């Protein structure tokens, strides 16, 4: 029994990160009809950037005559502090590049109402390739890892080994998702965003600036992927090809749970984490990823709105 609790708990912890990834992916799909095959790379890239800013004390490469405050290095004396500061610095960068720039240069140009989804899929695959290969060439040699911001403590409540990282990840994810839900439900901007997602034409008639609401969605996604990056790097390494598997769990979780509801993608993420751990332990460690994949295929074929999504006539 205690084993079951243990693997369930760690499944929830990994599932929490999957949920973050899935929610961001689902938000873009639901509100903008944008299926972003580079979603995993959108997580890997901030992870690497935070690693560099936080721990590797990079130089800006500025010419000598430019005065730089505090020497030419950025970074703090303690890894955790470095990472936190790096995280805070990376957020606006992510919002600008992965949010606004991505939307304006690619999504807006390739997604026409009533048109084909596939050009954006292809372009995002190209984008994913660019990011992935760039990370491989620049940083590929040895996968880097930074330590968990939650520290390395481990406890054994009731005889079950639990790490501070697991707890921290769970708590942060739940808080972030709660904050997102509160924002969407309780603030007027959030409600406008939901309205824009449900029915853009009706929203426009009501005077809601749909284009700007979609932009906010991209910004929120950028924040979500950065948080996911912060949480995932300690366990998954900041690898150049981490993006592919992260994309995969995002798709799988979002589709299984239901991509047209934030709640659906959230549950999907936790479900995939649990399924992986359960099947890994009770069935076969080698095929732990197979069960969620098979479930995704079944969902696509027979219940495309997901297990917890709503069946609706969407143009997507």
């Amino acid at each position: 029994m205690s084993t079951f609790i243990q693997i369930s708990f760690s499944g929830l912890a990994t599932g929490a990160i999957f949920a973050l990834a899935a929610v961001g992916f689902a938000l873009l799909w639901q509100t903008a009809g944008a299926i972003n095959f580079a979603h995993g790379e959108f997580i890997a890239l901030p992870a690497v950037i935070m690693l560099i800013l936080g721990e590797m004390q990079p130089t800006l490469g500025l010419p000598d005559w430019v005065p730089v405050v505090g020497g030419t290095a950025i970074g703090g004396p303690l890894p955790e502090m470095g990472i936190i500061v790096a995280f805070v610095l990376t957020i606006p960068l992510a919002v600008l590049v992965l949010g606004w720039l991505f939307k304006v240069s690619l999504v807006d140009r390739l997604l026409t109402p009533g048109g084909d989804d596939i050009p954006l899929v292809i372009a995002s695959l190209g984008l994913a390739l660019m990011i992935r290969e760039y990370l491989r060439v620049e940083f590929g040699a040895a996968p880097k890892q930074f330590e968990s911001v939650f520290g390395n403590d481990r406890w054994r409540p009731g005889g079950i080994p639990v790490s501070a990282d697991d707890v921290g990840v769970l708590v942060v994810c739940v808080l972030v998702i709660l904050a997102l839900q509160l924002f969407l439900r309780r603030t007027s901007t959030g409600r406008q965003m939901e309205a824009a997602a449900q029915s853009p034409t009706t929203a426009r008639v009501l005077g809601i600036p749909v284009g700007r609401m979609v932009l906010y969605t991209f910004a929120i996604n950028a924040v979500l992927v950065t948080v996911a990056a912060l949480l995932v790097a300690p366990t998954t390494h900041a690898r150049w090809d981490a993006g592919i598997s992260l994309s995969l769990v995002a798709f799988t979780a979002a589709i299984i749970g239901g991509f047209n509801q934030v709640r659906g993608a959230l549950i999907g993420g936790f479900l995939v984490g649990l399924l992986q751990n359960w099947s890994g332990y009770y069935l076969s460690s080698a095929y732990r990823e197979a069960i969620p994949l098979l479930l995704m295929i079944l969902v696509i074929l027979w219940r495309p709105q997901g297990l917890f999504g709503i069946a609706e006539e969407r143009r997507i």
Partner: protein
Amino acid sequence: MSATTSTGERLAHRRDAVAEIDRGSLSWPLAAAAVAAVATVVLLPVGRSEFAGIMWLWAAALVAVLGLNLLLPVESWNGIVVKWASLAGCVAFLAVFPVGRTNSTLVDLGLFVVFAIVCVGLNLTHGFAGKISLAQGAFLGIGAYVSVLLDTGREVAVAGFEGTLPDLPFLLAIAVAGLTCMVLSVLIGFPALRVQGPWLAFVTLAFNLLVYLVLNNEVGLTGGSRGLRTLRVDLVVFGVDLFETRNYYYFCLVFLLAATALVWWIVRSPWGRAFKALRDNPGRAASLGVDVRTYTLLAFSIGAGLAGVAGALYARLIEYIDPRGFYIGQSFDFFLATVVGGLGTMVGPFIGVSFITVLTDRLRFTGDYYRVWFGLFVVFMMLAAPRGVAGSFNQLRSWLRARREAAR
């Protein structure tokens, strides 16, 4: 119009005769110039590894060939001569360029040939029939492993079953590899009957992953992540020893030419129209008698079968296979190559495959970042030329023609 005229007669006056095709007359000087240009493109690089000085001549000849193809009407005699001369030139180039090259270059060229077979197949499934597939990497792998397992008399142990596999002649092993993939393709063919577009992309992606997991984990069958050595020893086909890389390259080239001819035949036949109808409007197609289900399964099985054959050839080309070579990254490569080359064109797959094989270390300005540039190129193509290189060429040709006719 008088009240006594019948409807039929009134309509008859407005009949609109279908025009006869005007092929014009053949210009011998033009034809000769075209052949000369093609010959220059084909023969100039033979045996050379550096051709700095005459690069300009070669480029000019290439531009001349492309220009003639662009400007001459497709149905005119001139256009037909130029087109067939160009195609013959492509085949000749593939046959003649390898002369005097090192073995490692020959393997690179062989990789181009083998991957071209995969993309020719994918072009049929996606380009002509409109069914997206991110699973060609999986079929490449299945073809590779099946052919190797059946060709070496290995001992295997899987799911409690132990035994020795038969040792088939190489050609038979290739055929079985292809057929196995054709049969297994129903696993994605049937889902393709229910879903389209991105959903089908996800299903084929999941299929690729599941295949990868099996290849990686069934160590008793496939050797798992350690991979398999697949040297070209004792491989004699019709008296030719395929141990020589040069011989093996031409062996693969024969398969590429056959695969291309097969797809060309299919597209030209009534099947080609049925596939295009399936791509453009499956609902309307069904209402006109097109058996959507059968044609969908056919589109997948042919594409997968070709990838399976390519896999069998691939295994012996690089003489070592492991599951990582058949992961979804490989499927992405095939997919992007086919799209960038030009979906629904015969030439597209060849152009696209050159981006993921032979060009990778030839463009000096990119250095190690070649694939970053390729990714950027993909993005650029989607924004500026979504029909791909060959598709955009055709578009340009139509546009130039329309302008010429408007000017008259």
